[in-house]
């Protein structure tokens, strides 16, 4: 199973930039917001927590359809399915690889982007904590969605349609956590809830993803 993870990371690094790209998307998204919304720092500071979380979520989303699609197209998925690796393990490794290439860099970069949007000072540690605890859930949910839509050409938009509603709870609590911290309120409760969602998603979704894969390979 480590072989799967290693291969996915190698592929991510070799073909098309890997780690850097989700970061770049995150950066661009946060710079685009002021272009749309206007340059008033007051408003920007107010929407910053939501925008940062939304950016992280979209950066995750954009790389989802590649999780299984390429393996499916070139026949690798068929072959892995007939190998000793259980599909549950495959799904878990895929989610982990996705998180390492997407979620992890976002956590590290978020504070810099917070500056651009004038996020108030006390919110920074909470921003990082909530992203660190929340992005694994995004990857796990996304892997499940990717497993559902593997085999559908042009599945990208369908995938986002399926996955985004599932992302809503994570988004709400994550953004709430940062927003509370930004206005000096207590932010522990939403943080704990984010962690809870992540724990649940990690425990259950690999099984759902494997079931979906099995159906799609049939």
């Amino acid at each position, binding site marked *: 199973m480590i072989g799967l993870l290693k291969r996915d990371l190698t592929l991510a690094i070799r073909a098309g930039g890997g780690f850097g*790209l989700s970061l*770049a998307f995150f950066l661009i998204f946060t710079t685009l917001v002021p*272009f749309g919304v206007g*340059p008033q720092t007051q408003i*920007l500071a107010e929407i910053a927590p939501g925008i940062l979380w939304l950016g992280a979520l979209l950066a995750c989303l954009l790389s989802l359809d590649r999780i299984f699609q390429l393996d499916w197209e070139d026949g690798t998925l068929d072959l892995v399915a007939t190998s000793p690796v259980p599909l549950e393990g495959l799904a878990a490794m895929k989610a982990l690889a996705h998180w390492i290439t997407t979620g992890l860099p976002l956590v590290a970069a978020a504070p810099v982007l917070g*500056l*651009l949007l*004038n996020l108030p000072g006390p919110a920074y540690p909470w921003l990082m904590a909530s992203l660190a605890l929340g992005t694994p859930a995004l990857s796990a949910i996304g892997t499940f969605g990717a497993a559902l839509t593997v085999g559908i050409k042009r599945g990208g938009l369908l995938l986002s349609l399926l996955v985004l509603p599932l992302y809503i709870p994570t988004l709400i609590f994550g953004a709430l956590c940062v927003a509370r911290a930004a206005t000096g309120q207590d932010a522990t409760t939403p943080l704990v809830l984010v962690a809870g969602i992540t724990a649940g998603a990690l425990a259950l979704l690999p099984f759902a993803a494997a079931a979906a894969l099995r159906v799609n390979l049939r």
Partner: protein
Amino acid sequence: MSSLWEYANPRKFMATSAFLLPWTAGIAAVCLVTGLVWGFFFTPDDFRQGSTVKIIYVHVPAAIMAINAWFMMLVTSIIWVIRRHHVSVLAAKAAAPVGMVFTLIALATGALWGQPMWGTWWEWDPRLTSFLILFLFYLGYMALWEAIENPDSAADLTSVLCLVGSVFAVISRYALLFWNQGLHQGATLSLDREQNISNVYWYPLVITLAGFGFLFIALVLYRTRTEIRARRLKALIAQERMA
């Protein structure tokens, strides 16, 4: 010298750049040290900006060179597209990371300057914002180089990107002015010097500017040499694998 285009031959370029490199690097070091030391230690504080005026000696040269670097990439890319001189496009590739670092310096020092002057790290001012966009263009250009395996295809595609990107960079600049009038300083370094900052600030600034310029030239020469070697390495490895 028969023709300027001869330098597009890798061997000729290697020879010429080997000669030029120590000189440009030396001038860059001298100018940078003189200019920065002069600027940091021997200029008075501004009556309004206090000692923050010293930031000008890194901020302005970096900003100016960041733009010039993109301009140089544009020119060398066009040369590649039209005359297909390999060294030309490799020079563009070599310049991109340098330009990106200059952009980053301008952004960082600007942000550090903004905190005391405007009371905020970041302001969505057109000048600053267009720098952020320039930074994104550098990132995209470099990422495209990295993503493509075949060197000639990568050269062609990045050149097309550089051309189209330049057009859009200009439109963005205009769009930004329209979007927000901004806080940033106007031009200090116009030809008509009398109307601008006084000589005490002017001389060290010009020297650091020259320093940044020569540093850029030296780095581009040096990195282009590396790129040429890497390109040859790639060719040789391909040849070995074919055998």
